[in-house]
């Protein structure tokens, strides 16, 4: 008998069902698909982190993971604010002067996925990110100052103002691009992983995508090919329950996206995406698996998008559902409470970290504002190599 599966329904109720005849994963020997971390969704206690957590993570690393989660939250919040401020101005004027601030896809509420996953990577590992990618970029080590300057369209931006929110690149930290095409990044991740395999390095590529991309054809093609060629890639499905406005319930067939791994004969897991330690444990195992040349794996992290698809669009979701996820299942206080409970941090330290994080984001804004606009005469640069 498989563990119980708890699913969220759009009517604000937990649906409980029992998986029947789920079959066994046809994986290579040596990979233990953890039933403990599969389906650890619960009804929302904040102090349940690490419950199934056999890993030992250095104290400093735990604190750093919290700091990065806080940074993502503060960065995303500020990006939304800047958009709203920009929006209050005369857009025709902003258009005419080239000073528009583009809509942003906030990843607030999903910080545990970005941080739990990227904390399992080495600096020379790679990620391919998505349109909702700010969190992934920060978690992989991208500079928030350059990212904020990018949002502002400045020359000091992480992509020199040529890419914007959905196209952030920093090869120095292994960030080979966030992507504006849903499902467009999964094939690219194959290639980056292929290059590592071709050269005989032990680098791993981590490919973020969402429940929306799981409905695109490239999902199937990419997992099939990655499995056939034993590519060192970890597919991390950040299932935030919504693709623009369609719910996963209305768009994803089958119980769990993570279960699709068995169709390709690769390891798959489904974890609570709001539990940073559960994400980290699952992804760390998948990364080791890839590094040991055992091939790809698929981790589905069940989380929830706090805001509308992007700034400027209305959010018409059920208030009870919003309350549940933002007030009862917020990944950030869950992790903070866990670290306080484990006496890894103190209240004073926590307050200090929050202050420093907010200061870092303000510095990023100041950096972006001080950065020069791109020189219009350079518009054709970077088309050809």
């Amino acid at each position, binding site marked *: 008998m498989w563990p119980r599966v708890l699913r969220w329904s759009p009517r604000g109720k937990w649906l409980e069902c029992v998986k029947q005849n789920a079959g066994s994963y046809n994986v290579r020997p040596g990979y233990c698909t953890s039933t403990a971390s599969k389906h650890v969704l619960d009804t929302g206690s904040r102090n349940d982190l690490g419950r199934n957590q056999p890993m030992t993570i250095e104290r400093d690393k735990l604190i750093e993971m919290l700091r990065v989660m806080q940074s993502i939250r503060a960065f995303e919040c500020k990006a939304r604010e800047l958009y709203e401020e920009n929006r209050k101005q005369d857009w025709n004027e902003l258009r005419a002067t080239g000073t528009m601030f583009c809509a942003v896809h906030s990843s607030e509420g999903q910080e545990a996925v970005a941080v739990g996953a990227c904390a399992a990577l080495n600096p020379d590992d790679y990620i391919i990110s998505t349109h909702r990618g700010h969190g992934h970029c920060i978690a992989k080590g991208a500079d928030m100052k350059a990212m904020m300057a990018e949002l502002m369209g400045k020359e000091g931006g992480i992509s020199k103002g040529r890419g914007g929110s959905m196209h952030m690149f*920093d090869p120095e930290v292994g960030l080979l691009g966030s992507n504006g095409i849903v499902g467009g990044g999964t094939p*690219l991740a194959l290639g980056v992983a292929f290059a590592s395999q071709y050269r005989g390095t032990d680098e791993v590529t981590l490919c973020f995508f969402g429940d929306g991309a799981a409905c695109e054809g490239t999902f199937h*093609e990419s997992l099939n090919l990655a499995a056939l060629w034993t590519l060192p890639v970890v597919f991390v499905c950040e299932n935030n329950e919504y693709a623009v406005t369609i719910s996963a319930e209305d768009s994803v067939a089958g119980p769990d996206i993570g279960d699709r791994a068995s169709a390709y004969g690769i390891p798959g897991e489904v974890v609570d995406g709001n539990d940073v330690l559960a994400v980290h444990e699952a992804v760390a195992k998948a990364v080791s698996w890839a590094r040991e040349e055992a091939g790809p794996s698929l981790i589905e992290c069940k989380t929830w998008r706090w805001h509308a698809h992007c700034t400027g669009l209305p959010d018409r979701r059920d208030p009870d559902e919003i309350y549940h996820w933002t007030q009862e299942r917020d990944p950030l206080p869950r992790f903070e409470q866990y670290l306080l409970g484990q006496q890894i941090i103190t209240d004073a330290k926590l307050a200090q970290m929050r202050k420093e994080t907010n200061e870092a984001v303000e510095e990023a804004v100041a950096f972006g504002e001080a950065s020069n606009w791109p020189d219009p005469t350079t518009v054709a640069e970077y088309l050809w190599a």
Partner: protein
Amino acid sequence: MREITFVKAMNEAMVEEMERDETVFQIGEDIARMGGISGATKGLIARFGEKRVRQAPLSEAAFVGLAVGAAMAGLRPVVEVMYVDFVTVCMDQIVNQAAKLRYMSGGQVKVPLVIRTQGGGCNAEAAQHSQSLEAWFTHVPGLKVVMPATCADVKGLLKSAIRDDNPVIFIEHKLLYPTTGEIPEGEYTIPLGQGEVKRTGEDITLVATSLMVHRTLVAAETLADEISVEVIDPHTLVPLDMDCIKASVQKTGRLLVVQEACTRSGFGSEIVRRIAEEAFDDLCAAPRVLGAANLPKPYSGKLEIETIPWEADIVEAIRNMVA
């Protein structure tokens, strides 16, 4: 000089470049034992092994995307997409990814990638295996587009394409594969963006690529006693050697672009636009495009023959313009 087939010239180019640079690898459908649909990759698997000759499943989006990602990570993939008609199922990876990654990253990455594919009709393969879709790619900034006509050209151009640091769409005409021609001995390349005067003349300039170069040359020869025809093969549509075309039109005063693609919104219109804007005063007749009918390619040869320019159509078009 020695005489070899078009497909052998391609094979030589790829062998030489794979010998020269270990980061060059092949990926595509049926490219290993079968040597690709045309035979261009024949023998590569025996010579370079499975690591560098990757026979892929029927997943164009995945293997073209893989090549784009691998190029971004420093390799030099040569991809075979069996027919240009099949790019529809991997167009996102070409248009939104390969063409734009360098620009969107502010120059932080580059995509040295060649996508080889076969185009063109006259082979009774009907509407989904006979198209000439080069204008789809020339419309997208960030892609180079090559359409070779002769054995010597295909070898030199393919070597340049593989060495180029940008994504290159390399369209081979399926009727040219078995043709033979002379190629220079030893190492040589032909730069992308450098056109060639295939036949000199005084009365009219014909611009054509790929199979249409051969048909325009036959037409020019047919008219040799009455009209002096200059034939220009730009080799590459992006970048386009406008200097070569313009110099010719300034001499002849007449321009006829011959293309196998449907006439409407084809690349011929672009050449006519450039000449209208840049050399209008040199023209003594309205510039023209002779292309295919704006129809899907019919299967029956009796019908298909009606849709594509043949030598006689070109002769007639020249006579109409020069008369």
